[in-house]
C-alpha cells in the first residue's frame, strides 16, 4: 500500500511544485486531461489536488464539482465537455449552462478513483459551504494525509473559521508529517497518530524503526517505541471488542431464529421444521411492506423496517395459527409425524414462494440510518445493520419475556407447558392456548426474518440455513426456557466467533456442533432443564 501511495504522492508533489506559482487553476487544460486516457486523468486529479490550496474559493468549488462528476460519471466528454445534472447540463470548465449533453463518460480506473476522491475531498475542504461538509471532507482526507502536500492543511486551517474544525485540520496536518525531514515534527506526528490508533497507523509508526534517526536519536526512538506500544495496546482492546461484537451479533441472529421454536417446542413437544420458512415469510412480508410504502408513501420508505414490525408479526402469526389449526393439531400425539408434516409444509412454502415470486434475491432499500458503520476505536467498527439486529433481538427478548410472565396468555402458556392435564382441569382452554402459542412462535420467527433483511440475502431458500443451528440452540438451552435459549445463543455465537479465526469457518461450525452434541450426552435435558419426574 505504502509504495503505491508514495508514488502517487510523488506525482502530486511534483505537479504541486510546478503548479505552485499559478494562483488560478487552468480549468480548460484540466478538463481536457480528465477527458483523456487513464494516464492523463491521473495528471488531472493531481493538478486538482495540488491546485486547490492556492486557488480561489470559486476555483476550489469548481474543482470539487469536476472531480465529483468524474467519480459519478456525470462528466460527458463531448465537445465541449459538459457535466450532466438533473437541472440541465453545464459546461465542464465554466459551469455555464450548456446546450448539448452528449459524449461518453470516462470510467475511472482503480488507480485513478482514489486520486479523484482525494481531489474532491481536498477541494471541498476549501469550498464546502457548511461546516459539516468540510468536516466530512477532512475525515476522507485523514486516511491519505501522508500523500498530500503539508501546506494544504496549513492553508486550509488558515481559511477555516470554525475553531474546532481548525484544530482538527491542524492535527491531521501534523499527522501527515510522519515522513517530514524535521525530527521534532515526526515525533509530534507519531504522538498525534498514536491517539487514533488502528492497524494502518501501526504499520506507519512501526515502519519508522527503519528510519536512520531511530538508531541515533534517543528521543525519536522513545517516541516510536511508545507509539507502537500504545497502538498495540489499543489494537488488542479493539480486537477483543470486535470479537465480542461479532459474537453478540451472531448470537442475536441465533436467538431470533430460535426463540419462536423454543416456545413451540417447549409447549407442545412439537418439532416445527417449517420454522425457517416462517423466517422467510417474515422477510417477504417486510419486502411487501417496503414495496407498498414505495408506492403509497415514499417519504416513509426509510422507516419501512419499523412500519413492518406489527404487520410482519401478525401475518406470520396468522400463517402459524392456520397451520396449527389445519395440520399440527391433528398430530399432537405423534410428534415424529409432525416433524415430517411440517417438513412437507416447509417444502410447500418454499416452492410456492419460488413459483409465485421467483428465486432471485429480493432487493431491500438500505435505510440511510442503517447503512455503513462507525469506527469506534482502533479497529473496532460498529456496523449499523448488525447493531439493529442486536437491539431488535434484545427488544424481542424483553417483549417475549413480558408476554410470558405478565399477561394472561403467558400465564396460560406456562401452565400448559408445565402440566397440560392439570391446566385443562383448571379450565384453561389448552387447545386455544396451543393455537395462540403456535401463533406467537411463528410471529417471532417472522420478526427474525425482518431483522435479517438488512443482513442476509432474502430468497426462498433462506429458511433452510437456520434449521440445524436453531434446533441445537433450543435443545442446548433446555426445552421450554427462554433464559436457556438466550444463554445458549450467546454461548454458541461467542464460541463460534472465537474459533473461527483459528481454524476457519467450517471447522468452527463443526467444533461447536460437536461440542453441543457431546454436552447433550452429558446433560440430555440441556442447560436449563425444567426438572420433573421422569416418565
Amino acid at each position, binding site marked *: 500500500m505504502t509504495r503505491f501511495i508514495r508514488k502517487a504522492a510523488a506525482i502530486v508533489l511534483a505537479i504541486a511544485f510546478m503548479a505552485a506559482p499559478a494562483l488560478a487553476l487552468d480549468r480548460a487544460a484540466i478538463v481536457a486531461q480528465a477527458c483523456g486516457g487513464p494516464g492523463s486523468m491521473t495528471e488531472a486529479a493531481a493538478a486538482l489536488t495540488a491546485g486547490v490550496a492556492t486557488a480561489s474559493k470559486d476555483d476550489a468549488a469548481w474543482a470539487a464539482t469536476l472531480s465529483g462528476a468524474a467519480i459519478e460519471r456525470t462528466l460527458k466528454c463531448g465537445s465541449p465537455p459538459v457535466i450532466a445534472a438533473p437541472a440541465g447540463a453545464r459546461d465542464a470548465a465554466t459551469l455555464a449552462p450548456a446546450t448539448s449533453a452528449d459524449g461518453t463518460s470516462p470510467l475511472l480506473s482503480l488507480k485513478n478513483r482514489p486520486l479523484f476522491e482525494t481531489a474532491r475531498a481536498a477541494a471541498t475542504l476549501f469550498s464546502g459551504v457548511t461546516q459539516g461538509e468540510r468536516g466530512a471532507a477532512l475525515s476522507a482526507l485523514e486516511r491519505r494525509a501522508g500523500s498530500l502536500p503539508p501546506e494544504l492543511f496549513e492553508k486550509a486551517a488558515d481559511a477555516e473559521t470554525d475553531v474546532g474544525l481548525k484544530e482538527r485540520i491542524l492535527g491531521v496536518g501534523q499527522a501527515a508529517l510522519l515522513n517530514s525531514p524535521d525530527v521534532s515534527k515526526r515525533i509530534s506526528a507519531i504522538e498525534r497518530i498514536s491517539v487514533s490508533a488502528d492497524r494502518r497507523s501501526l504499520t506507519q509508526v512501526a515502519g519508522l524503526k527503519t528510519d536512520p534517526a531511530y538508531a541515533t536519536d534517543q528521543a525519536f526512538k522513545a517516541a516510536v517505541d511508545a507509539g507502537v506500544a500504545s497502538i498495540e495496546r489499543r489494537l488488542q482492546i479493539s480486537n477483543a471488542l470486535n470479537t465480542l461484537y461479532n459474537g453478540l451479533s451472531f448470537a442475536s441472529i441465533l436467538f431470533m431464529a430460535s426463540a419462536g421454536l423454543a416456545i413451540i417446542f417447549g409447549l407442545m413437544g412439537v418439532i416445527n421444521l417449517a420454522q425457517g420458512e416462517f423466517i422467510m415469510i417474515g422477510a417477504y412480508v417486510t419486502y411487501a411492506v417496503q414495496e407498498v410504502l414505495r408506492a403509497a408513501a415514499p417519504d416513509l420508505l426509510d422507516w419501512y423496517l419499523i412500519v413492518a414490525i406489527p404487520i410482519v408479526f401478525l401475518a406470520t402469526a396468522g400463517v402459524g395459527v392456520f397451520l396449527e389449526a389445519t395440520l399440527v393439531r391433528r398430530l399432537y400425539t405423534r410428534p415424529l409425524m409432525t416433524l415430517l408434516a411440517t417438513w412437507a409444509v416447509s417444502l410447500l412454502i418454499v416452492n410456492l414462494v419460488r413459483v409465485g415470486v421467483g428465486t432471485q434475491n429480493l432487493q431491500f432499500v438500505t435505510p440511510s440510518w442503517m447503512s455503513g458503520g462507525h469506527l469506534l476505536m482502533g479497529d473496532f467498527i460498529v456496523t449499523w445493520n448488525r447493531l439493529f439486529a442486536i437491539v431488535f433481538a434484545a427488544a424481542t427478548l424483553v417483549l417475549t419475556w413480558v408476554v410470558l410472565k405478565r399477561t394472561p396468555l403467558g400465564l396460560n402458556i406456562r401452565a400448559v407447558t408445565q402440566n397440560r392435564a392439570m391446566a385443562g382441569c383448571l379450565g384453561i382452554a389448552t387447545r386455544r392456548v396451543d393455537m395462540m402459542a403456535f401463533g406467537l412462535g411463528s410471529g417471532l420467527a417472522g420478526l427474525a426474518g425482518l431483522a435479517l433483511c438488512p443482513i442476509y440475502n432474502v430468497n426462498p431458500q433462506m429458511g433452510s440455513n437456520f434449521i440445524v443451528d436453531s434446533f441445537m440452540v433450543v435443545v442446548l438451552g433446555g426445552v421450554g426456557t427462554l433464559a436457556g435459549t438466550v444463554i445458549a445463543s450467546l454461548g454458541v455465537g461467542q464460541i463460534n466467533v472465537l474459533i473461527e479465526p483459528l481454524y476457519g469457518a467450517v471447522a468452527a461450525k463443526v467444533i461447536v456442533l460437536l461440542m453441543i452434541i457431546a454436552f447433550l450426552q452429558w446433560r440430555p435435558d440441556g442447560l436449563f432443564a425444567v*426438572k*420433573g*419426574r*421422569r416418565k
Partner: protein
Amino acid sequence: MTVAILVEALTVEFGRFRAIDDLSLAIDYGEVRAVIGPNGAGKTTLLDVISGVSRAKTGRILFDEKLELTRASEAQIARSGVRRKFQKPSVFEALTVRDNVEIGLGGAIDAVARERVDKTLETVGLAAEAGRLAGELAHGQKQWLEIAMVVVSEPKVLMLDEPVAGLTDEETERTSALIRALKSPERAVIVVEHDMDFVETVADRVTVLHEGRTLFEGSMARARADARVVDVYLGR
C-alpha cells in the same frame, strides 16, 4: 427372618423440590404393606427409587439385606426379583396378551414357561384373551395384564402403584382377592393406593407419608384414628 426392603435416610430431590426427605423404613417378607398419603407425599417417588427409575440424592435402599438398589440399574433390580406395576397401566399395546406375559417372564420360552404363562393368565382371568392385542383390552383388563406381567416371574418384592384406580367395584373386589392370593412368606408386597377401603382389605400394615417423611406406621384401623393423619388428609 430377613427384611425385604430396608430404606435408610433416603433423600430425593427434583431441582429444588425435595420429594423424599430423610426417609427410613423397613418392609418384611410375608407382609402386604400399603403406602398412603396425600398427593405429592412421595409415594410414587419411593417406588421409583426402589425400582431404579429415579435416583436418590443421599441414603440407600437394601434389598434382601444384600443388594444396594440405589446403585443398581433398573434391569438389575428387576432381575434380582424386585418388580413393579406402574400407576398408569403400562402394557405393550402392539403385542398380544400372551407376548406381554412372556416378556414379563423373560428367558427362553419352553414348555415349562408356557405352562406358567398359561397359569398366570388363568389367575388374572385373561386366558380367553391370550391371542388379542394388549391395546384392544379394556382398562381393567390392562391393569390385570400388567399385574400378570409382573407376577409371572414370581418376584420377591412386588410393588403395585394404584392397582385399582379407575376400576369398578366388582373389578376392585377381584383385584383385592388377587393380591391376597399373591401374599406369601417369601414375598413382600407394597401397595400404593388412594382407596382406603381397598387398602384396609389387603394391607397388613400401612405407612402414611407426608411431605416426603413418615407420618405414621401401623395398622389401617389405627391410622384412621390417628389425629395427625386425619389432619393431613382433611385439615387443609
